[in-house]
């Protein structure tokens, strides 16, 4: 029973990783940039949710939507201000800029509200359901369902809508897409908006599940989500979901085996092994479909 319980813990953690990883993967898929500021968009989303619930007394779903909207706008702004003019620069320049943006967001937040943690208010009365001896809290079911709904929505956008088609076209070949009359700039902005909105949602969910939020909270989940994206095959949307879930479960199992202090190390070991043996990730193939 304990193992099933650990699996439940791992899936809850993994669905948060998966939501953040989707943003990494989409941005990488379309402009080949590892957006290191993504973890901090996640943090901002968490704080917006916190203020929405604790100060402005909104419910969970309005707070979630507000956080997603503001994060989407923020993602677009970051892209327009910091990354757009570097589109033809070397990749290392863009990468360093991303790290710079990340630090800017973190320390601007600390400047305005200090570095002390805040405690998320209780939105739902947390009930534990007993399913065959396994305690499943209502919050973890909520996390999982919100994550799954958002992922299905994303698949729908990418595969069934016009903007999704444009995103797929730009990711294959931006120049050819431009020749076909696709507005590449707007498509890239849309990608950032969607990815950041998902990170914002993950931030609110994280706050509700783990209670404590602080301005540097985005760093570790951001790195883990990056690993999850690489694990699944960066640039591939189902890969990010599977990678995130898998990473969450692996971390829980490592802890369950009594190596809780090795949990973070395990994630990095996975990154190293993947890069050595299968750099294109689990879902990576020679002819692959990207966002």
């Amino acid at each position: 029973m304990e193992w099933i319980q650990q699996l439940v813990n791992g899936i809850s953690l993994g669905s948060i990783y998966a939501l953040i990883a989707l943003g990494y993967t989409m941005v990488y898929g379309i402009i080949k940039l590892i957006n290191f500021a993504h973890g901090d968009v996640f943090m901002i989303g968490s704080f917006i949710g916190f203020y929405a619930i604790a100060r402005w007394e909104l419910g969970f779903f309005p707070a979630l939507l507000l956080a997603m909207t503001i994060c989407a706008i923020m993602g677009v702004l970051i892209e327009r201000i910091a990354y757009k003019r570097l589109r033809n620069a070397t990749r290392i320049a863009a990468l360093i800029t991303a790290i710079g943006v990340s630090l800017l967001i973190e320390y601007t937040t600390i400047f305005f509200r200090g570095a002390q943690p805040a405690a998320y208010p209780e939105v739902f009365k947390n009930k534990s359901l007993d399913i065959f001896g396994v305690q499943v809290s209502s919050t973890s079911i909520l996390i999982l369902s919100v994550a799954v709904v958002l992922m299905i929505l994303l698949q729908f956008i990418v595969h069934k809508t016009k903007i999704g088609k444009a995103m797929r076209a730009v990711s294959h070949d931006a120049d050819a897409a431009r020749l076909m009359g696709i507005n590449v700039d707007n498509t890239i902005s849309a990608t950032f908006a969607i990815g950041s909105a998902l990170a914002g949602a993950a931030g609110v969910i994280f706050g509700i599940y783990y209670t404590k939020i602080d301005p540097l909270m985005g760093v570790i989940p951001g790195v883990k989500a990056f690993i999850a994206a690489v694990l699944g095959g960066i640039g591939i949307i189902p890969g990010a979901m599977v990678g995130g879930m898998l990473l969450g479960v692996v971390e829980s199992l490592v802890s369950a085996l009594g190596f809780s202090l090795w949990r973070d190390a395990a994630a990095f070991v996975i990154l190293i092994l993947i890069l050595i043996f299968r750099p294109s990730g689990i879902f990576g193939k020679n002819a692959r479909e990207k966002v």
Partner: protein
Amino acid sequence: MKESKKLKKFGSLLVASSLLAGVLAGCGSGDDSGSGGGSSSSGGGGSSDGDTIKIGANLELSGNVASYGSSIGLGAELAVKEINDNGGIDGKKIELIKVDNKSENSEATAAAIKLITQDKVVAMLAPATSGNTVATVQIANDNKIPIVTGSGTAPNITVNEDGSVNEYAFRTCFIDPFQGIVAANFASNELGAKNVAIFADNASDYAKGLAKSFKETITANGGEVVAEEAYVAKDADFRTQLTSIKGANPDFIFIPGYYEEVGLIVKQAREMGIDVPLMGADGWDSPTLVELAGAEALNNTYITNHYSAEDPEPKIQDFVKAFKEANSDKAPDAFNALGYDSIYYIADAIKRAGSTDGEAIKDALADTKDLSLVTGTFSVDKDHNPIKTATVLEFKDGKQVFNSKVNP
């Protein structure tokens, strides 16, 4: 495949930068002990001119732990006033000379030198934090002026790593590992715990010390440690470790650590249906703990602390009343009480020594037996640490309520 090569580059860059960050963090955490030494031993023993006895107070009155030092100072002032109103020490009044060390090691060293060489104090109240106190120990030894810290709990203030005792360094509070012993005794004797679990912060020496002494004592009491798990500071997800602990079915869980993580642990444990008593130490003592865990989850949890203002004992209630009168009705916290006690501890030693010579005072401080103070009655052991009772507090609806006192 070109793609994946570039990805490899990103990956290795990421791994390299996080390794570097880890190394830097490792270096940062090591400076807790501070760097003492570098003193100019110019002054000899202290003197007292005319009918006052000068006692220095080297305190954090500004800087990042200013609240600790200021609290110690308020307690000390009250004690000095009381002693002087009752005729002083053998007819001589105490004069308290306060110096601000700005919460910095180097300033603490400078303040100690100033107090000894310029003000010619006979004894000193050492800084509130362990790091700042360690920075003044060497000066005290060189100048033969005893120092007493109210709240420096690190073992290396009074005892060096090689086991030698710092002749002139004393303290009023108990040391960190002692709280582990108290918690273990409380668990076995008061709660009847048999199968216990330990969930410790593996990133702090404080928590590791507590966990070690708790484990030794509970085993000696006939209890069994059925699960031992660890976490590191800044973690947010403790459910996996708690699941393992729950699987071992303990009837008591000891959680040494600081309030930021403990708040989440308590909340998550209760959510998972772990309803056994949880216990920690003075690291839990913060209003943030209640915010993070929620008042309801904190029911049936206990902490060890230096003192409780709600303790019904007359001596403590007299102190609470006097302190409230002097400080516009503010209830005294543990730091106020420890500052107050430190002055009484020094005054008692000067009185018994019958002299203001540093060496005589030092011997009297070391010989103190059964001195009754607000934070407990204590005797000093060979390592210059007080052997005293600890107070156990219980959380009830988010408030700390006095539970009992536990003798070592």
